[in-house]
């Protein structure tokens, strides 16, 4: 959907007249994916919105929001939905294969190397150091996402968060069981709070 304002319309992508070829889609997504260490989202936005102008920033945000609220790897979902908008199912497959194929090949090579050389002491030490830093990065994401809840003093959301943490992290209950209980509860509470507000 093109935006209404004329300034934005100038920069808006002209998808209808020139859909990119399947090969272009594949290469574009492979490039974003291979540039993305520790997350591809930034590169996907840069590639799709800034470089190729296949989507406006708003369209990208909307599509990403949809893919984020659905389960599964967000950026993989995005590649599939985006590819299909441009070129139908073949486009979806091209974008998806570009995003996942080349890095998965790299991952297999890493797997081969790990299984052959994983016992070497120096490599063991390096990997433990990398793991410590990677855990820190994950905790930073947790803090960043928690900040709005803390600022709003959203006690119920924080309690739900802690309950899921305990059920999964400490009690080690199966994910499906925990979420089949937690999702309806959380949706009901959110719905009720918004109605009351």
């Amino acid at each position, binding site marked *: 959907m093109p935006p209404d304002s004329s300034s934005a319309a100038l920069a808006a992508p002209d998808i209808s007249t020139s859909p990119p070829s399947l090969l272009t889609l594949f290469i574009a997504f492979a490039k974003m*994916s291979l540039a*993305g*260490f*520790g*997350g591809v989202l930034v590169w996907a936005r840069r590639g799709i919105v800034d470089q190729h102008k296949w989507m406006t920033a708003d369209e990208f945000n909307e599509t990403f929001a*949809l*893919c*984020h*609220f*659905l*389960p*599964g*790897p967000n950026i*993989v*979902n995005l*590649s*599939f939905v985006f590819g299909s908008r441009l070129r139908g199912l073949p486009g*979806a497959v091209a974008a998806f294969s570009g995003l*996942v194929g*080349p*890095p*998965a090949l790299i*991952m297999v090579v*890493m*797997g081969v190397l*790990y299984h052959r050389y*994983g016992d070497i002491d*120096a490599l063991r*030490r*390096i990997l*433990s*150091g990398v*793991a*410590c*830093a*990677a*855990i*820190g990065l*994950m*905790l*930073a*994401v*947790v*803090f960043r*996402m928690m900040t709005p*809840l803390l600022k709003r003093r959203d006690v119920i959301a*924080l309690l*739900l*968060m802690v*309950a899921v943490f305990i059920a*999964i*992290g400490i009690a*080690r209950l*199966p*994910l*499906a069981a925990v979420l089949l209980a*937690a999702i309806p509860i*959380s*949706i009901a509470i959110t*719905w009720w709070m918004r109605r009351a507000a």
Partner: protein
Amino acid sequence: MNSDSNPVLTLAWTFAAMSLFAVGGANSAIPEMHRVAVDVNHWLSDQQFTDVYAIAQLSPGPNVLIVTLIGYSVAGLLGALVATVAMCVPTAVLALIVSRFLTRASQARWPGIVQAALVPLSIGLMGASGFILARTSDRTVVAVLVTVGAAMLASVTRLNPLWMLLAGGCAGFAGLIG
């Protein structure tokens, strides 16, 4: 190892089912991957799981590709392929169907409510991911300092995360992590 069933089929079924519950992305499913791969099926040891996570973070591409490595450890190339496809394709198809449906009959209210309701759950899941990995990795004071340092740097600066991973790797190589 469960000898009575084909491990490739177990991989396919396990990851396809898991992907449908990965709310908030692949990192939310780390505790379930650990439970399935280490506790239930004994595909990997605790240490190997943490190694695999570190390798996945060091490599380019979407975070979900940790399943490629788990699959490879279980059943070689075929395992890698099956685990990757099983974790990615079902939810991608679901996303495609929902996106078509939403553009046709746009009900702006419900997606917003569901999304807001999922946020605290996915934060709890990611916190659990960090906790489970830290139990294996952060066994020394320096290791904890590296984790806390990376968390703080990533929170207050816009430094490329790769630098922090490399710094952690150097600290490990120097024998500081233990």
